[in-house]
């Protein structure tokens, strides 16, 4: 499955996930504490340097992850222009761009497996509250398996529909596919039990 991790290797790929995540937390908190557009702009510039040092393809990929922000930035500028509070508008915009870019930077430079392992370690104190780390790992693998299986199911049942009906497919197949998915889950539960279950 496609992950957000960048195939382009960067210096940050070598930093372990733990410190990176801690730094991200620190940076985000600091950003939200800063109010002056100037200091926020400096922060963004520093981050941009780090990103640009990773090369052109990486920077472009990261820039793409900021795309969902643009409608928000547009409203923001209109709104603050109308209010006459340009500095405030800059602060909010810079803060959000920097925070999202920093987060993307960490996501893109950490392999998924490493991140999941870190999360599991972070969650391990919850074991005492009844969280079973093995069950979590299992649920994760099962979820990732179910995505293509459910899509396949939908396609296969669409074929079954097409084979016997000239009408368009659409929602007719939703219910059979849902029930089939539930059956799959029941079968998987049994198969899991057959091999020791979520011991």
């Amino acid at each position, binding site marked *: *499955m*496609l*992950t*957000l*991790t960048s195939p382009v290797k960067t210096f940050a790929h070598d930093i372990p996930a733990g410190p990176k995540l801690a730094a*991200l937390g620190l940076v985000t908190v600091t950003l939200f504490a800063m109010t002056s557009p100037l200091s926020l702009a400096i922060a963004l510039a520093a981050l941009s340097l780090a990103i640009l040092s990773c090369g052109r393809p990486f920077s472009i990929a990261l820039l793409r*992850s900021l795309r*969902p*922000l643009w*409608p*928000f930035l*547009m*409203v923001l500028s209109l709104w603050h222009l109308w209010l006459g509070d340009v500095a*405030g508008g800059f602060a*909010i915009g810079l803060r*959000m761009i920097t*925070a*999202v*870019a*920093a*987060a*993307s930077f*960490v*996501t*893109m430079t*950490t392999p*998924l497996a490493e*991140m*999941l392992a870190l*999360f599991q370690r972070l969650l391990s104190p919850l074991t005492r509250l009844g969280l079973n780390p093995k*069950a*979590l790992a*299992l*649920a*994760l693998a*099962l*979820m*990732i*398996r*179910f*995505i293509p299986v*459910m*899509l396949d199911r939908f396609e296969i049942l669409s074929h079954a529909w097409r084979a016997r009906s000239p009408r368009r497919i659409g929602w007719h197949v*939703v*219910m059979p596919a*849902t*029930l089939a*998915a*539930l*059956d*799959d*889950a*029941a079968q*998987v*539960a*049994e198969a*899991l*039990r057959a091999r020791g*279950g*979520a011991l």
Partner: protein
Amino acid sequence: MEKNLTQIALFAALIAILGLVPKVDLISGVPITAQSLGIMLCGTVLGARNGALAVLLFLFVTIAGLPLLSGGRGGFGVLAGPSVGYIIGFPIAAYVTGAIVEFWRVNVGLSATVAAFLGGFVVLNVLGVIGMSIMLDKTLPEAALLALPFAVGDTIKSVIAGLVTHAIARARPEALLSRA
């Protein structure tokens, strides 16, 4: 045990699949998505606890870096964006929805529709609006205005959640953990 686990995984996957339905971008930066239907179904079918766990599993993988939010987004960035209130609200909404279905034992279709509306629309949007007001530096009423476009879609989604839950209750009663 195994059954709960697999159903949790299944519904987490379902939320991911609903993310493939094209989203509609709005000026607030919070899109109209089909994924909140998945959140509702987690609650109505799996019940409070398992429903919330399914949503948490989905978020766990998404935040760790699989691009499973609508439009192929994921990673920590989503927590720094204007949707953060909704993201935090997802498991809570599923929990509330599930709790209502478990508690209010009338016809499951009706109970699920109402629960999906209260949990997946009211609770979720309250949290989402608070998030927007913080992230976008708006007053609560202003932020609430930004959530207005969700009303129609979310009501339709509640009805769909009710219908689907009803159909499952008829065809696979044993799979309806919320009424187990």
